């Protein structure tokens, strides 16, 4: 059951254009900032929104086009909502049996199937509980069991780990990967976190302002981000401009010099650890030096992360000792520099 989607959804204020092909068994991550069109994409795939142009075809069956709209209940999808939306008046078992019951399975068999799915997600003991008696992680597992129990052709997950604490999210992530690997249809996972993207997905699609701006394996996307959002997620500084012979001229008027000769529109990415901060203009190499002001200072692992508002917005990781020496606080003037050899540049 492969997915061929190539559609446009127009909503008041924004337009989402998506072109996406996924093979059966593939786990595709949708990543991007709020308002990028991730939820719109999921809702259109699920049939909760009509498309204005183009088509959605799953396993050779046309689900959406300008003139066709197979209603959500006639599509074979499993949808895991961000806040799980378990029916509060039904037990966990009946929540999971809801899908099979809806597609005509007899009550007894539906319950048996639900029991089986609760077992597979190792939550059998929750069967008789009400949703309000569940922790966030438990509720999310029930929601996953409920989506899978109706045996869908495609699985859609909206930020499955967003409502969980760090350790809960990691445990769910690992379990989710296992189940999505075993799932035979296409899975689409909307995510806000780099970890979800790295652990769960086979392939990432980056959305920005309603358009797909990048696609590739999680490793490829993380190494060469093309949006500020992804760069921030993977913890990189990203600048964009026009390169000629290894110098990227930025729109802001400054330049970034890199080690590799390249020409045309390009991105430059460098890690916050490669950025050094100085109280005065550094002597020696005048290249890749910017003057700006500190906007925030926060702990980041063993280091201190400093946000600098210069001609390009920068993140710098410095040692606590350096922080003490520089006496930084929001508003402090600062010089920042990065070595050309630490900058990776690639074509836009």
């Amino acid at each position, binding site marked *: 059951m492969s997915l061929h989607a190539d559609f446009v959804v127009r909503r008041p204020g924004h337009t989402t254009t998506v072109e996406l092909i996924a093979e059966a068994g593939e786990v595709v991550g949708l990543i991007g900032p709020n308002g990028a069109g991730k939820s719109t994409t999921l809702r259109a795939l699920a049939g909760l929104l009509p498309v204005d142009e183009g088509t959605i075809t799953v396993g050779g069956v046309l689900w959406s086009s300008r003139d066709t709209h197979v*209603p959500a209940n006639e599509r074979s*999808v499993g949808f895991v909502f961000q806040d799980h939306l378990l029916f509060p008046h039904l037990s966990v078992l009946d929540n999971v049996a809801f899908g099979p019951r809806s597609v005509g399975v007899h009550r007894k068999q539906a319950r048996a199937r639900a029991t089986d799915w609760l077992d597979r997600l190792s939550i059998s003991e929750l069967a008789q509980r009400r949703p309000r008696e569940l922790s966030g992680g438990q509720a999310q597992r029930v929601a996953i069991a409920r989506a899978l129990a109706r045996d869908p052709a495609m699985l859609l997950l909206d930020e499955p780990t967003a409502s969980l604490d760090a350790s809960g999210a990691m445990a769910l992530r690992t379990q989710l990967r296992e189940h999505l690997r075993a799932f035979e249809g296409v899975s689409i996972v909307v995510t806000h976190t780099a970890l979800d993207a790295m652990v769960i997905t086979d392939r990432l699609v980056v959305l920005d302002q309603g358009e797909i701006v990048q696609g590739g394996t999680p490793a490829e996307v993380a190494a060469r981000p093309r949006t500020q959002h992804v760069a921030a997620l993977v913890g990189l500084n990203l600048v964009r401009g026009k390169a000629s012979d290894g110098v990227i001229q930025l729109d802001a008027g400054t330049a970034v010099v890199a080690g590799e000769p390249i020409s045309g529109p390009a991105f430059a990415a460098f890690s916050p650890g490669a950025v050094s901060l100085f109280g005065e203009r550094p002597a020696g190499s005048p290249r890749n030096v910017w003057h700006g002001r500190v906007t925030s200072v926060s702990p980041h692992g063993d280091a201190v992360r400093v946000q600098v508002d210069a001609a390009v917005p920068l993140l710098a990781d410095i040692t606590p000792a350096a922080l003490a020496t520089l006496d930084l606080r929001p508003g402090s003037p600062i010089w920042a520099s990065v070595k050309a050899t630490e900058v990776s540049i690639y074509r836009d």
Partner: protein
Amino acid sequence: MTRTSLATRGRAPLGLTVAALVALLFLVIPVVAILVRAPWASLVDDLTSADARDALRLSLQTTLLSTALCIFFGVPLAWLLARTAFRGRSLVRALVTLPLVLPPVVGGIALLMAFGRDGLVGKWLDSAFGVTLPFTLAAVVMAQTFVALPFLVISVEGAFRASDERYDDAAATLGATRWSTFRRVTLPLALPGIVAGAVLSWARALGEFGATVTFAGNFPGTTRTMPTQIYVSFLGGNLDGAVALSLVLIVVAVFVLASLRERWLSGAAR
């Protein structure tokens, strides 16, 4: 909340407090007066007289029927108002609310114009089926339904709106048709609101007088409900009988208020 606002903002001004007390007393004194005046000694006799028994039985019968009709037809109307978008929805809502503010006696006249033997629909009912509605038990039920239905529709629509519409989306992605979603998700989630609406509309139907007496008349045993019996007793000089039946209605009203407050109203306010 109240305690902190009293503490931080000082005492309530005397003028406001006095006016508020007057309002409260004005509402409470008449009820107290009826309790004081009640013929406690002859109460059992007054309530078991043939007239009173007939009126009680008839009221119970007709109000249960009209409440059932309100639920059966009102819940779908409330669902349409809450869950679908169509042109003129606000007009429909205004029309639904109209009987709420219409004087009941006007409602009775209107029903007569519609379903009377010469009425808009009644003429046709008469010639096609030989059915005449006015001054029958059916007319009592119709009058009660006419005045009570808005209460049910408004409160159930509120309940549908208050329950998260995305549960409907979740049900749809699980393969449930809209009807099945309504039955298995929307309805159970709105159940407290539906019960509250049903109790409210039952209480309204029980107290209905103006529309009933205009459209259904005042025939002992078939259309003389409790409020009408109270009025008849009162005019006929049987004050004890009128007050005794009034007590029953007061007890019912207090019971309705108490049950709504404890079980449903506080739940809705949370």
